[in-house]
């Protein structure tokens, strides 16, 4: 069986002025379907770089990243974008809702880009997810009228709307108080169970870490523990 994500001997080097910074060094990791994995480590350890590579927002300097068995290093911007749209869902630290759209429209957004759905199909899916994250009542509200926890729920719904196989979350609870953070993690875990979606998220919050089925620790661009 193919892994949800496979990372084979991946290194990433960024130019910085006249020198280079090695963000990741020969990483070798596999993520199975339905895993609920956290990537932990201090700032600058390479968490974000790893997530960017898994998220197809960047390509490795060496090695290869496979998304459901498909190598990404040779893909162009268009294909990477399509891959993100079809296979991946994203949850961001500061929620990143589109300010000019309301809750419903934010969740619907990826479906509209994807195309091929009738308005009813879209509406049904959005409604279903709004129920799931408990935001049906806020459907018409703009993102700036919502609390942090509510915004992150919208983001989760948006990440799930295209029914991706992998959801990436970059410090999803960092901007939330601990109880709200906990509820968000609970929600993610529930989705992980019900949808069989692979979750990979970065955090340095021990409270969050304890919910993970697997913890990968990074330091200085290398895997300490996986």
């Amino acid at each position, binding site marked *: 069986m193919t892994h949800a994500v496979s990372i084979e001997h991946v290194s990433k080097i960024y130019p910085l002025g006249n020198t280079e910074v090695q963000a990741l060094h020969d990483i070798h990791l596999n993520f199975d379907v339905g895993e609920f994995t956290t990537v932990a480590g201090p700032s600058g350890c390479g968490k*974000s770089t790893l997530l960017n590579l898994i998220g197809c*927002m*960047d390509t490795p300097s060496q090695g290869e990243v496979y998304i459901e068995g498909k190598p990404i290093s040779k893909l162009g911007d268009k294909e990477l*974008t399509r891959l*993100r*749209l079809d296979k991946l869902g994203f949850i961001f630290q500061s929620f*990143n809702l589109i300010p000019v*759209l309301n809750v419903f429209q934010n969740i619907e957004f990826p479906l509209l*880009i*994807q195309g091929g759905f009738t308005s009813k199909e879209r509406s049904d899916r959005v409604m279903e997810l709004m129920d799931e994250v408990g935001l049906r009542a806020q459907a018409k509200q703009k993102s700036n009228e919502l609390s942090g926890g509510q915004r992150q729920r919208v983001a989760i719904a948006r990440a799930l709307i295209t029914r991706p196989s992998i959801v990436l979350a970059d410090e999803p609870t960092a901007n939330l108080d601990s109880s709200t953070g906990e509820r968000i993690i609970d929600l993610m875990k529930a989705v992980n169970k019900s949808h069989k979606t692979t979750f990979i998220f970065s955090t340095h919050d021990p409270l969050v870490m304890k919910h993970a089925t697997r913890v990968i620790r990074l330091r200085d661009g290398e895997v300490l523990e996986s």
Partner: protein
Amino acid sequence: MRESLVLIIKVAFRNLWLYRVKTLVIAGLLCMGSFIGIVGLSLLRDVERSMQDSIISSVAGHLQVYSSKAKDDLALFGGAFMGRAEIGTMPDMVVFRELIKKHPNVADFIPMGSDMAMLGRGNELDDVLTALRTALKKGETDIIEQRKQDLTFLLQQLDRELTEREKLSSDKELMVRYRTDLKTAMEPEYLASLKILDEEKLLFLDTRIAPISGEKQPLYLMYLGTDIDLFEKNFSKFKMVEGEPLAPGQRGILLSYKVRETQLKAVVARLFDRLKKRIDRVETTIKGDADNEATAKDLPKQYQQILASLDRKESEELAAYLKSIGIETAEKELVAGLKEQLQKFLIVDDGNFKDRYAQFYERIAPKMKLYEISPGETIVLRSYTKSGYIKSVPLKVYGVYTFEGLEDSDLAGVMNITDLVTFRELYGEMNEESKKELEAMRAKSSTVVTTAAAAEDALFGESAAPTLENREIEGQAKSNETIQIKPVISDVFPISEIQNGLALNAAIRLKDGSKIDQTRAELNKMFKEAGLEAKLVDWQEATGIVGQFANIVRIVLMFALGVIFVVALVIINNSIIVGTLNRTKEIGTMRAIGAQKSFVLGIFLAETGITSLIGSILGAGLATLFLLALNHKGIPAPNDVMTFLFSGPRLYPTLQWNLVILSPLVISLVATIASIYAARHAAHVKPAEAMQEKE
């Protein structure tokens, strides 16, 4: 695809609202551009059309033909400087006419020639002497006294003038004679004793005193010689105002209405006209308008002009009339009293002007000699011919004409029209009679005929006797003989004379005026094949700088629009780039969750497109309303040049729907295309930017 498009537009609209100040600035700018563009181009087209109408149907025709040997370009309304353009001649128009008329689109061929001549005018002494003679005839003592006072005043002026001339003139003998004569006339007894129609004294004053004074300031008249019959038929704007047109084969001149009104009319009437025109046309008031105030201030000084042309009966009538409208005087003596009344009458303001104007023309003008020249009178035109002689031609004034709608125009309206035979005479072409006359003159004055090459030697060489042309000779001769001018050429001529022979240029009127360029090219080909040295220009070129007016305005307008547009585009691009910085995270997020670069590009282009559409459509709407209002009210021509351009006193602009519809589309399209660079910049925001946290 459709969903994406709808989404793009939706997001674009939201963003425009979110950044509404920026949107407003850009839309406002494009609104202005669209407004100026539509209004400007509409007006320009209207002016161009009306100007075309003015020019084609007044003197130019659709095309003008003249010699290709011309040194200067043909400029029917004068070039940039009022010089004599050297446009060569068509020695025999028949060749040209026959060939040109072969073209199926040519309706007519109207031969012409134009030049400038000096109008012989009398002087103030002549006028006063005529008035004195009239008063003496009627035996009206107080009027006679008044005229004598006028005469005395002029004699005193003449005395001062002569003193100056005595210092300068080399003709001492003549000066002594003048001085003796003037002394005689200025003896107090001389005028005091003039109480009856004393022909001997009057003749002395007429023939010995009046000529001492120079002529009134010479008046240069532009004249156009043509076949008046053809002219009338082909130029629809030609219209007689007074008198009658010249009959075929009749020598004479038609005065331009404009020239007569502005140069040959009594000053007092001109001042009234000027005020009236500015008040009516430009909608100004007297008070507060510097030009009008100055005119109104000049008016009361002109009483003398009225007074000088009234006899006793007329003076009494006028005094009584002025009294009846409330202008009174305590003065018992008639002339002194009337003077005071007239001065009061001529003080005008915004309250009384309308009445005074009407009263002047109703009650005073008919008593005056309103114009220096009127139909029925004979004038003398003097020109420097091409052969260098001064030629004087007496011409009967048959009437006054104008170009309809261009009554006030300085350009088309300054031409006086005469027959081609007279033109040739003034131009200096020799006919048999004038050749003989010249021979006789040469014999009499023993002038040596010389060639151009030998002329220098003949004039300045050792053998050359100093010869000076003295312009006074002519005046003297005129005053010594009786005032009978014997025409050199006869008053009538056979029609064939103007159908053959010399013309400088000719107007060509076309049947289908829309095919000017085509016809021109075909005619040029015909000229070439026939080996005819002819040059063709269209109405626009033929009228020199005037015809180019529309082009100049177009360039200025385009430049202004270009500036507005460039500013708008710079602001648009700038705002997109700044907007990209502000919206990096938003764009990154869209890209991260699967939006293609083209989607981001689309949002920014849509924002520009929508903003510019809104702005330019608004501008187009405003322009439409503005033009409709102008169409209803008309734009008054503020001056005479504009009257010409407007082809009348007001321009009624028309709305061009294609311009109203196309302008916003073109503006939006250009603005959108121009913003592609900046929008691409936005589309290059990396999806990973979504992850960046601002600390």
